[in-house]
């Protein structure tokens, strides 16, 4: 099942929910509405000839207008790769948890919550685990974050 059959297969089966983003790269990237996330993710994992059972990574991106959560999937049996992203509003980003589909997402989502402030609905244990316990200076990975002792590297004067 090469990349282009994957594209047509996705277009035919998940056409309405997964809209392809043309980024000119050979790995297909899709966009997904937040409310379809759990249902499409379960379908992608259980589909017979897709079998995306390996969640590589969930990356959160803070483009100053909105938040994106990017899911990178892979299939251990079918040698396939797929990425899709979910767009969220900037003021109070919220997303469903995919823990019951891929339990491996637990810590990825916890990190997203802790460093970006993206609230994860029905996540079993949303507590702080990377930053010191008495951390109170907000969400450090956001673009607009700053702190008194945060020293930025000066620009090289070329």
């Amino acid at each position: 099942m090469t990349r282009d059959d994957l594209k047509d297969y996705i277009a035919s089966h998940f056409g309405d929910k997964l809209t392809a983003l043309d980024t000119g790269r050979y790995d297909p990237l899709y966009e997904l509405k937040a409310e379809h996330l759990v249902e499409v993710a379960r379908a992608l994992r259980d589909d017979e000839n897709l079998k995306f059972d390996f969640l590589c990574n969930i990356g959160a991106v803070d483009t100053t207008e909105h938040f994106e959560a990017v899911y990178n999937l892979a299939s251990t049996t079918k040698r396939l790769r797929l990425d899709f992203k979910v767009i969220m509003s900037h003021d109070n980003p919220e997303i469903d948890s995919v823990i019951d589909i891929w339990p491996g997402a637990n810590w990825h989502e916890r990190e997203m919550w802790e460093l970006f402030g993206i609230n994860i609905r029905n996540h079993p244990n949303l507590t702080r685990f990377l930053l010191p316990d008495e951390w109170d200076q907000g969400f450090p990975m956001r673009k607009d974050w700053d702190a008194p002792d945060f020293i930025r590297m000066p620009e090289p004067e070329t």
Partner: protein
Amino acid sequence: MALIEKVPVYAEKIPGGSIVTTTLERVLSYGRATSLWYLLFGTACCAIELMCTGASRYDFDRLGMIFRASPRQSDLIIVAGTITKKMAPRLRRLYDQMAEPRYVIAMGGCTIKGGPFYYDSYAVEKGVDHIIPVDVHIPGCPPRPESLLEGCIHLQEKIKKQKLGDWHKKVRSYDQG
């Protein structure tokens, strides 16, 4: 105060006692210098270099330094690797648990001034001497095993020159200052 400390105080009173104290001082500081048992404490990349220095090519044991697992029995702590803000209180507690004549080697750039993580990092403690008094700084990221050995020999020279009871003033002054 270990009981051996009180000997020079009385020896001074008897005539010609000062010869005894100086030789005793030299022997005691020589003893402290030659058998430095270091604590197994490595956080980041410098820990791998610490392991390589303990291995067969550059051997620590030649200098009489063996690793001890518990802070109670070790008298040298080699801070090998980045100390983050979450790790700082633990390092301070480890240092407090060590028995009194204790020394610290700050190994690697991260322990001196934050090293490569000085700019743009919100979670790294910039320099270990904010937390514990440091005796020898070893630059390098990670420093080569030879420079670590050179640092240890440097510390041994420093201990040999120390007077008795010197290390009391150092820790007291550090905590008040």
